[in-house]
C-alpha cells in the first residue's frame, strides 16, 4: 500500500470516519448526531475497501449504514415525547478520562508490538472464499447466528406487543 492514490484515500477516509465520530459527541441534536454516525459508517466502509475487503464493505453499507441506522431513526421517531437532547450525564468527566485512557493504551500497544507482517498484496476477491468458509469450517456458528437472529426478532416482537393483546 504505497501508491499515492491509496495513501490519499486512507487519510481522507480516516479523517472522515474519526471526524464524524467526534461530531456524534459534539452535536447537541440527536437526529444530526445520527446523520454524522451514518457518515462515519460510510467512512469505515471506505476503509474496508482500501483493505481489499469487498464483501465486508458492502455488508457494512447494507447493514450498518442501511438497516441499523433505520432502526435508530425508528427508536428516535417512536419516542416522540422524550427529549431530543444529546447532552452528557454526570459521568462526562470520568467517561472522558476512561475513554482517553483506553484509546491511548490500545494505540500505544499497537505501536510498540512487533506484528508479524505478511508480505503479500491485497486479496483479489473475498466473497466466494468467505462463502465457502461459512458453509464449510464455520457452518455451526453460521447456523447459530441464524437461530440468534430468529430469537432476537421474536423477542423484539414479544417485548413491544401492546399489553392486553389477546392470545391466539
Amino acid at each position, binding site marked *: 500500500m504505497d501508491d499515492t492514490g491509496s*495513501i490519499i484515500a486512507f487519510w481522507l477516509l480516516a479523517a472522515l470516519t474519526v471526524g464524524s465520530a467526534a461530531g456524534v459527541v459534539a452535536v447537541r441534536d440527536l437526529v444530526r448526531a445520527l446523520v454524522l454516525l451514518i457518515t462515519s459508517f460510510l467512512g469505515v466502509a471506505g476503509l474496508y475497501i482500501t483493505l481489499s475487503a469487498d464483501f465486508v464493505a458492502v455488508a457494512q453499507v447494507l447493514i450498518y449504514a442501511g438497516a441499523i441506522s433505520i432502526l435508530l431513526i425508528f427508536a428516535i421517531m417512536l419516542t416522540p415525547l422524550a427529549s431530543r437532547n444529546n447532552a452528557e450525564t454526570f459521568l462526562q468527566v470520568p467517561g472522558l478520562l476512561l475513554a482517553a485512557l483506553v484509546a491511548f493504551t490500545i494505540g500505544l500497544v499497537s505501536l510498540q508490538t512487533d506484528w508479524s507482517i505478511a508480505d503479500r498484496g491485497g486479496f483479489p476477491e473475498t466473497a466466494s472464499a468467505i462463502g465457502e468458509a461459512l458453509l464449510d469450517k464455520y457452518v455451526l456458528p453460521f447456523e447459530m447466528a441464524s437461530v440468534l437472529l430468529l430469537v432476537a426478532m421474536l423477542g423484539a416482537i414479544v417485548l413491544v406487543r401492546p399489553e392486553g393483546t389477546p392470545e391466539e
Partner: protein
Amino acid sequence: MAIELEHYLIVGALLFGIGLYVALAKRNFVGVLMGVELMFNAVNLTFVAFSRFVESEQPLSGHVFVVFVITVAAAEAAVALAMAMLVYRNRETIDMDRINLLKW
C-alpha cells in the same frame, strides 16, 4: 509514507475511544446505542486490518468473524430498540439519568 497496519490500528483505537465515551456519558438511550455501534465498528476495522496485513494460514478468518459480529450487532440493535420502546411506554422518557427505578 506507506500506509501500514499501525495506521489502521490507531484509527480503530480512536474510534473505540469515542464510542466508549458516547456509550458511557450520553444522556439519551439512542445516543448510548450509537456509541455501542461505534465500538463495534472499531473492532471490525481492527479485525479486517489484521486479516489484511498479518501472517496467517487462513487470512480470511478475520472477514468471517466480522460477518458474525455484524449479525450479532443487528440482533442487538433490534432488541435494544424494543427495550427503548418498553421503557418509553412506562416512563415517557428514555433519558438514562431518569431511569432510576432500581436506585435505592
